[in-house]
């Protein structure tokens, strides 16, 4: 069960009919729920990054973690500004709750690791996390977002997270 994390949950959410019977699918979320998921996913990755800055001694990990904080904060700033402009509030939903609760498990796991073991696990989690979120954003969110401004922000965010995924991939290779 070591690696049952966001990617698994998202795969379930995207593909399991039994799971769908109990909750909405990502494709059913409205724009404000999608915005809430994205904001939550950003905040979760910022939490992972702060943990990495606290526990890792590896300069490459530090540089990556600082980039995650800088970029995700910038995206959230834009998202909040857009929501304010649209006079809308993001809406909590099943997927945001899953992402947040799953993050607690990952943070507990990472907190027990040190040294190279922490670095590799953090890097692998970043790779898996960005892959999962990118699958969600590219396959479910962008095609279904109705508001053009929100869609445009997600398209910009998608470019950013794809770059993060490549960066994480490079980091994992360097650590192996």
């Amino acid at each position, binding site marked *: 069960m070591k690696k049952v994390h966001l990617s698994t949950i998202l795969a379930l959410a995207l593909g399991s009919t039994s799971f769908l019977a109990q909750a909405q699918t990502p494709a059913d979320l409205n724009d404000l729920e999608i915005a809430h998921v994205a904001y939550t996913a950003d905040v979760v990755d910022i939490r992972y990054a702060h943990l990495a800055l606290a526990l890792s001694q590896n300069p490459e990990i530090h*540089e990556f973690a*600082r*980039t995650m904080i*800088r*970029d995700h904060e*910038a*995206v959230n700033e*834009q998202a909040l500004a857009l929501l304010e402009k649209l006079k809308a509030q993001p809406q909590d939903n099943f997927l945001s709750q899953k992402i947040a609760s799953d993050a607690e498990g990952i943070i507990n796991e990472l907190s027990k690791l040190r040294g190279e073991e922490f670095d590799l696990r953090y890097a692998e989690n970043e790779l898996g996390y960005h892959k999962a979120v990118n699958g969600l954003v590219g396959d479910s969110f962008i095609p279904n977002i109705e508001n053009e401004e929100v869609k445009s922000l997600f398209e*910009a965010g998608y*470019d*950013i997270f*794809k*770059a993060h995924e*490549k*960066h994480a991939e*490079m980091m994992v290779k360097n650590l192996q």
Partner: protein
Amino acid sequence: MNRRNCLISMCLLVAFATGAVHASGGRITNLKKGIASTHHVIAIEQFRYSSVSLDAALGDKITWKNNDIVPHTATAENGSWDTGELKYGETYSLIVVENMGLYYYCRFHPIMAATLQLVQ
């Protein structure tokens, strides 16, 4: 002519007199002191530099402009120059000089890289 238009006209006259203004496409040619130099503008968009390999001559001016919502840098691999952090909409310019680093990358996103090619 009102005071504002008068000031604008004076500025343009000074600019032409010093040979500083001649725009053409995405480049601006500077004819100051009879030496033709070019102003290159490199946009940073979607985690790419708009020119991956730019031909530039000594004395040319290069401006980087970040159009992404996240910050970027353009940083010489050999450390000889650095735009510093460029937030959304910010720009940084430098003049091409001898011995400057020609390979550069984004310090925040090392998957982004580009080169300058020195030409005569």
